[in-house]
């Protein structure tokens, strides 16, 4: 089940009614309604997935009990933390990376002349496993760091890890931020309903209005994401490859930010506040700024649980660069079990390291509006170009795309070209930034916009647009594969 499925409004209505119709004093029962709904939501894909998430929950809960037990000594608590984190990473490794490493190992053997062709154990990738494993790790580590009290009630740990609005594609919610919300008295109010509606509406437009309609321009160039090995990049003109890469930059933003906004909106309808996951990343003026705006929950998770654990910037300049690089490399691998993702992460890691290096040498920096403009252009061109390995099927395709960007590719025999309207995709991103960051948002806070007739009229207009965009066959979200 996904947010744009026809079944989802029915599911949501039932869960909403069951949750809020329970008297406020039955706080725990309300949480159980959400837990049950989360199980149904996740089991809708495949009931077997429930067993895996059950194991992840049990490990996190058990490890948390020991990691936070102050009667134990530090070593024992550290050992429990390590065990819990390692077990979760092992699960992630088996379900997400086993096939990748096994296939890569066989390729390597074949490369050195050893004929190896064993049938790899094909393991299915459970939806959202990367997201909830990271949440489980966040719980264990937060308990160990004593940012969170030990939680003895496994049902609460289960709800934190499996909370359906953000279960399958984030945002990755921190345990220290979520558990206190379970404790407090959540009340239904018009404020949370309307703010949830606003988030959901924006997310809906992102996904159904933009992302799903940009995909038909990207998929023919880079290949159908569901069919491996069907890309035909070489047939397309240079301008088409550049256009398709820009369009993919727009698609993945609208798709993922759309899901995040909808998740925030749905969570808010149940009284939970989930932090924003995107903050107009294509307006960023440096690569570090980009990662403060793009997939914020992942980048901050990587910073707090990986980069800092590796030593962060506390062990000298060189080590800082290495840590930045390693963190992004692993961040790339987190996105998918393929070398293209590793390269994507490595390039971002290298860019962050270079940016850090330049920051240390102020003479290379240009300030003011000009500096910001140059930074904006350079950052976005880099980000867009580096989407190529994220989306392309293989490095051969990536090299062709990069050659198209630089004009080094001869496309005189290319027979296919995209229509000019593909450029409406990046234009939509620009307009989204203008709507979100200009005085337009101030207009929404003005007295006139709070007039009931205008507000409800606008809701009617939005509903008319949303129905026209309503997908009778919902397209999956891009980030579900991660």
């Amino acid at each position: 089940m996904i947010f744009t499925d026809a079944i989802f409004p029915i599911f949501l209505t039932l869960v909403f009614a069951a949750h809020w119709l329970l008297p406020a004093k039955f706080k725990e029962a309300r949480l159980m309604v959400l837990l049950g709904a989360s199980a149904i939501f996740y089991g809708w894909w495949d009931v077997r997935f429930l067993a895996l998430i059950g194991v992840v929950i049990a490990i996190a809960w058990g490890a948390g009990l020991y990691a936070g037990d102050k009667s134990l000594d530090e070593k024992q608590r550290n050992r429990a933390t390590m065990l819990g984190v390692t077990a979760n990473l092992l699960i992630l490794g088996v379900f997400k990376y086993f096939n990748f490493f096994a296939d890569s190992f066989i390729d390597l053997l074949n490369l050195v002349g050893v004929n190896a062709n064993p049938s790899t154990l094909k393991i299915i990738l459970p939806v959202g496993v990367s997201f909830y494993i990271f949440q489980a790790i966040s719980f264990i580590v937060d308990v160990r760091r004593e940012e969170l009290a030990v939680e003895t009630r496994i049902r609460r740990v289960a709800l934190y890890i499996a909370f359906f609005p953000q279960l399958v594609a984030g945002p990755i919610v921190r345990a220290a931020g979520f558990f206190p919300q379970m404790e407090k008295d959540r009340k239904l109010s018009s404020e949370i309903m309307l703010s949830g509606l606003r988030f959901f509406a924006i997310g809906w437009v992102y996904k159904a209005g933009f992302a799903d309609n940009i995909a038909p321009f990207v998929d023919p160039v880079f290949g159908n994401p569901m069919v491996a090995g069907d890309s035909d990049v070489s047939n397309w003109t240079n301008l088409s490859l550049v256009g398709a890469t820009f369009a993919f930059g727009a698609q993945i933003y609208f798709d993922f930010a759309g899901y995040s906004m909808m998740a925030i909106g749905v969570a808010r309808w149940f009284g939970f506040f989930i932090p924003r996951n995107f903050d107009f990343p294509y307006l960023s003026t440096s690569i570090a700024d980009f990662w403060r705006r793009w997939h914020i929950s992942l980048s901050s998770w990587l910073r707090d649980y990986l980069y800092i654990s590796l030593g962060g910037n506390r062990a000298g300049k060189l080590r800082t660069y290495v840590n930045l690089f390693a963190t992004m490399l692993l961040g790339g691998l987190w996105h998918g079990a393929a070398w293209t993702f590793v390269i994507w992460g490595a390039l971002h890691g290298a860019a962050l390291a270079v940016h850090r290096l330049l920051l240390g040498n102020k003479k290379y920096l240009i300030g003011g509006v000009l500096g910001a403009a140059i930074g904006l252009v350079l950052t976005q061109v880099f980000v867009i170009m580096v989407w190529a390995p994220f989306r392309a099927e293989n490095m051969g395709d990536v090299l062709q795309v990069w050659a198209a960007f630089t004009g080094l590719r001869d496309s005189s025999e290319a027979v296919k070209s995209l229509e000019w309207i593909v450029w409406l995709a990046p234009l939509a991103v620009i307009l989204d930034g203008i709507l979100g960051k200009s005085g337009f948002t101030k207009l929404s806070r003005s007295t006139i916009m709070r007039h009931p007739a205008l507000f409800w009229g606008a809701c009617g207009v939005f509903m008319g647009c949303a129905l026209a965009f309503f997908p009778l066959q919902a397209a999956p979200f891009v980030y579900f594969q991660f």
Partner: protein
Amino acid sequence: MPVILFLIGILALGVAVLMRAPRKSNAFLPIASFTGGLIVSAICIAGAARLFDFQRTTDFDHFTANSIEVTAADDAPIALFLGASLSRNAIDDERLTQLLREKGYPHRAINLSLEGSSLQERNKALLEYLKRAPRAPDVVFLSVVQEFDELSAYVFKVAKFSDRAIDQFDREAAEWAGLGIVGGACYGTIGCIKDIVFGGIHLTLNSLNVGLLSSGERFSDVEKKPAYDPQTKPRQEQTLDEIVEALDEVLPTEATNGPHWAMSFRAMQRGHLKDAGVRRISYYAPPTVDAGIRAYTQNVCAGELVKFNCIPANDPILLDQLKSQIWFDPEHLLADGAQIYTSWLADKIDETGALK
């Protein structure tokens, strides 16, 4: 992304960004404002879709687009066959063209048929063809099959809540379905109630453009596909004895009229065709194993449609040739059967002077 999607997407995004908690008011104002906004946006989106030639794409559109291309590519007069699955499986239009030309007719036959298509859906495809084709067909052959006459909301039998059902159930189609239901063109009381409920829902979904932008495209972008769909393996086993016994049964002709709504519908359709410059209109039905279904067309041809050229498939010569394992199921022919029927149809067209 198509311009219309971009424009409406930006509009929706702007509206969503502006949404903030309103001041309190009585209940009437929100309801009236919401409904007003919804209706205005629905009308504007429908208008914009027309302006940009943007529409839901159904299977029929693929066939219509192909038919238009075939028409444009050939100066010959067109003989258009409009039907449902029986026709889609039974009329090999390439072969029929060849046979007609061997008999001295310059016509190009075009099969424009889709399985499970109601009279309304077929008419929508026909009007689309007439609107976009470079010239009107010389002759149009319209299929008359019992089940479609007897169910004015046939679409709900095959494709509820699909793009196809929502697309065809516009105000005009709903009126025809309503006329049919009032006259009993539905199966039983519960069936009639279901049709009324589904009709209301689909008309609403159509009026509110549900799914129009998510699944639509410009007509010029629609992939072109020929309708003729030869089948090679039966989907329902029948013994030869069963087939022979059923085909031997030829019921006597009793001149009759179709249901009132279907008669009116056909009269309306003939008006459209005449206005479009179609020279002649004929009726036909491909063969079925079931004698009752064959007899229906024969009876309507002898009654309601007696003034028109009409070719029911109840000719013993044809039925004798069909007495073998050439049936996809009791109502549809396999490719071998289609060849037999197509040859017979060419002879019959010649014999009845349908193209003269």
